[in-house]
């Protein structure tokens, strides 16, 4: 794709310098809002990460006494799940990197609805306050991130904590929904002349599909959460058997949202990996159209597989067969993506800069997580593996290693464009290798624990599970120390005085953000770029 732009050399900060308050609290600029989102995601990751450290320290030994109250433990696992999903992975990928780069990549001056954009960010912040109240007030919210009733109804979870957590889901849901509407409007209407859908960078495709998933899935979650809140506070019995309701209904509604949600978290990651692989192989992406439509197919099929989370719940035998087959079908478009990344590298001239290390790590670990996903998709095997540590290993391979590796790949790839200073290459690589070793040591032994039958959400376990739990906790400590390296990388970036070229990655980086200065000026594309 060749691009022209008339955008260099104008005042980087527009016509006036806004005050701190009006720039950051009332921002309507997609880059500033993107920065705010990334900051929020950073805070979310730290809080969620500290919670996971507490969990791994508790599980390091059997009969450990760091957490002696089951309610505290349940509140921690619930908050860890909710925060990592809604306040780390989603804001980092969609609100953060999506906000920053989608408008630039399609040659738009900003998002379609800048004030809506600001509003979705502040809903996220409000939601975070509420989810923290849900963690700390009273006994905390202890139903797990899936929030299954009856455990979180008024009878079994009295107190306001659960109401705060449920309401935080509403707030973050509104935030995501408004953001998704904004992305759809922006991508469909504001592409620069010549930027046809079939020329649009894959990251924009991934955000577009993600936005459609959000628009379709979030309202279902909102409905389910509303019914829960009404059951808790207004005497309805949507999920109460005693009143003719059904707890299984909630499971259906939750996973009708929850399964698309996993693709909401991984599709933007796919987009980032495509850009990084193409840039550092110095080759255009292999099979571009196949890559774009594979994401569309994943998004579509992702909506009709939800009950594979319910194989040991109330579900008929024939439905199990359908949901198993439909789930396995997703492996095909996912395979297209993995093989296309490898084909993009094939014949390339690969440079292993830090972003490429994260991308290659992502592909390999995501394939492992995908392989265990195929195992778990078998309803017949789920009868053995459902809810045990094999499942925990599986979804941390695709999230803690999949989504998180892609977030780091995107961070190292674009930080120069966002901050105007490059990261230190050596420390970036140290961060990658320590994190790679740490997370594999944490999560690989969990496969064994799961096969041996260790259930999830246990603060204390049978003594036979001690060995692999210890190894896993050592891995978690290594990952935690690795994060300190990342802090140093951040410190180096923000104290650097080094100036960066527009396109600091060279010939492989072909999308529009590499045609604007580093850091990207406050207003990009005051003249509309033309894509030939």
């Amino acid at each position: 794709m060749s691009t022209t732009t008339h955008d260099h050399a104008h005042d980087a900060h527009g016509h006036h310098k806004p005050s701190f308050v009006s720039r950051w609290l009332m921002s309507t600029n997609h880059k500033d809002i993107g920065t705010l989102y990334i900051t929020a995601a950073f805070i979310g990751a730290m809080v969620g990460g500290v919670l996971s450290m507490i969990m791994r320290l508790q599980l390091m030994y059997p009969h450990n006494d760091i957490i002696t109250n089951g309610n505290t433990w349940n509140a921690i696992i619930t908050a860890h799940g909710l925060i990592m999903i809604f306040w780390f992975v989603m804001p980092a990928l969609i609100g953060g990197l999506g906000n920053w780069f989608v408008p630039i990549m399609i040659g738009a001056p900003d998002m379609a609805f800048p004030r809506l954009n600001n509003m979705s960010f502040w809903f996220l912040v409000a939601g975070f306050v509420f989810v923290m109240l849900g963690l700390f007030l009273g006994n905390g919210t202890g139903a797990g991130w899936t929030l299954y009733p009856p455990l979180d109804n008024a009878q079994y979870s009295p107190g306001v904590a659960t109401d705060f957590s449920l309401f935080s889901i509403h707030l973050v849901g509104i935030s995501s929904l408004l953001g998704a509407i904004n992305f759809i409007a922006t991508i469909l209407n504001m592409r620069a002349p010549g930027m046809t859908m079939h020329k649009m960078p894959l990251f924009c495709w991934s955000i577009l599909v993600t936005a459609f998933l959000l628009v379709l899935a979030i309202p279902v979650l909102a409905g389910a959460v509303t019914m829960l809140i009404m059951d808790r506070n207004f005497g309805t019995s949507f999920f109460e058997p005693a009143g003719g309701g059904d707890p299984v209904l909630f499971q259906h509604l939750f996973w009708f949202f929850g399964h698309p949600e996993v693709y909401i978290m991984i599709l933007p990651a796919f987009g980032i990996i495509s850009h990084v692989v193409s840039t550092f192989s110095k080759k255009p992406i292999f099979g571009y159209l196949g890559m774009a439509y594979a994401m569309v197919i994943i998004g579509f099929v992702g909506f009709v597989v939800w009950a594979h989370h319910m194989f040991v719940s109330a579900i008929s035998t024939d439905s199990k067969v359908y949901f198993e087959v439909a789930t396995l079908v997703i492996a095909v478009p996912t395979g297209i993506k993995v093989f296309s990344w490898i084909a993009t590298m094939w014949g390339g001239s690969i440079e292993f800069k830090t972003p490429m290390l994260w991308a290659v790590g992502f592909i390999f670990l995501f394939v492992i997580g995908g392989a265990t996903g195929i195992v778990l998709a078998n309803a017949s095997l789920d009868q053995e593996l459902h809810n045990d540590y094999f499942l925990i290993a599986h979804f941390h391979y695709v999230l803690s290693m999949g989504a998180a590796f892609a977030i780091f790949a995107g961070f190292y790839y674009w930080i120069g464009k966002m901050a105007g200073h490059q990261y230190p290459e050596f420390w970036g690589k140290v961060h990658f290798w320590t994190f790679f070793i740490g997370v594999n040591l944490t999560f690989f032994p969990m496969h064994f624990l799961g096969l041996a039958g260790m259930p999830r959400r246990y603060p204390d376990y049978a003594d036979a599970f001690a060995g692999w739990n210890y190894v896993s906790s050592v891995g978690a400590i290594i990952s935690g120390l690795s994060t300190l390296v990342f802090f140093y990388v951040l410190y180096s970036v923000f104290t650097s005085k080094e100036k960066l070229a527009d396109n600091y990655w060279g010939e492989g980086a072909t999308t529009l953000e590499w045609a604007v200065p580093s850091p990207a000026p406050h207003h990009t594309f005051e003249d509309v770029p033309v894509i030939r």
Partner: protein
Amino acid sequence: MQRRIVSALGVACVMLLCGHVALAQTASADPLAAANSYVNAPFDWQMWLPKAGSPMEARIDWLMQYVLWIMAGVVGFVGLLMLFVIIRFRANRNPKPSQVTHNTLIEVVWIVVPVLILAVIIVPSINLIYYQADDSNPYLTVTVTGHQWYWEYNYNSVPGLDYTSYMIPDDQIQPGELRRLSVDHPLVLPVGEKVKFVITSGDVLHGFYLPSLGVQKYAIPGTTLTSWTIIDKPGTYYGQCNQICGLNHDAMPIEIKAVPLADYIAWTKTALATYTDNTVPATPLSSPMPRNQLADATR
């Protein structure tokens, strides 16, 4: 039911005539002694599924190996491919990148081959789903009810046999018992007979999970789910609650004593007399057991 017990007694007689281990056990005072000969519990550094205690678990084990070896092949293939690409196409070995972005043949191949692999997985997997669903003609049906935080076992074919099963608290563990796995009153089942579980809950969701027998179902208030097993040999088998159920989710394990049929029948008689004081009255859904009663007892 009468006929079934008669025929079961017949089976027991055959077992006795065969000089089965039951011969020695029936003479013993403790009808559960046979279950102590073999313990199927998780062990240190275990890396694979439990040793199969039932035909169901044996089939799950087989399918697990089948699927996992196929997937190991896929991961191995992708891994080697990536290793080759990483080594062969490094910038210093291949300074001029190719610009190839399409190859129709390879793109069709990497769609068709995964579809074939999935087909190979799906066939035995679906067979096993229907096998798992076939709970017809059980010898014995046990209604299993999850409560915060104990299990209740009601033997449908033994009127009045309904008792509760609590975890042994950590500070009362005796030698030979397993911390977090042993219970005060285990579930007693006959060996070699089809046992159907009707699983429900008296309060929140629980998970009835027996890894070594290949059984897992949610316990859901207001509805019943079924599963079944045939235990291969006398022994002690363990399971745990596998759906978050509140404060003591990790403190409601399942312990099964599997004994020869004759011992089982002998046990039902003593149990009817012994367990009467443990019998839980049927609790209406609107008024579950007091929740905090156990909180400090087990932690």
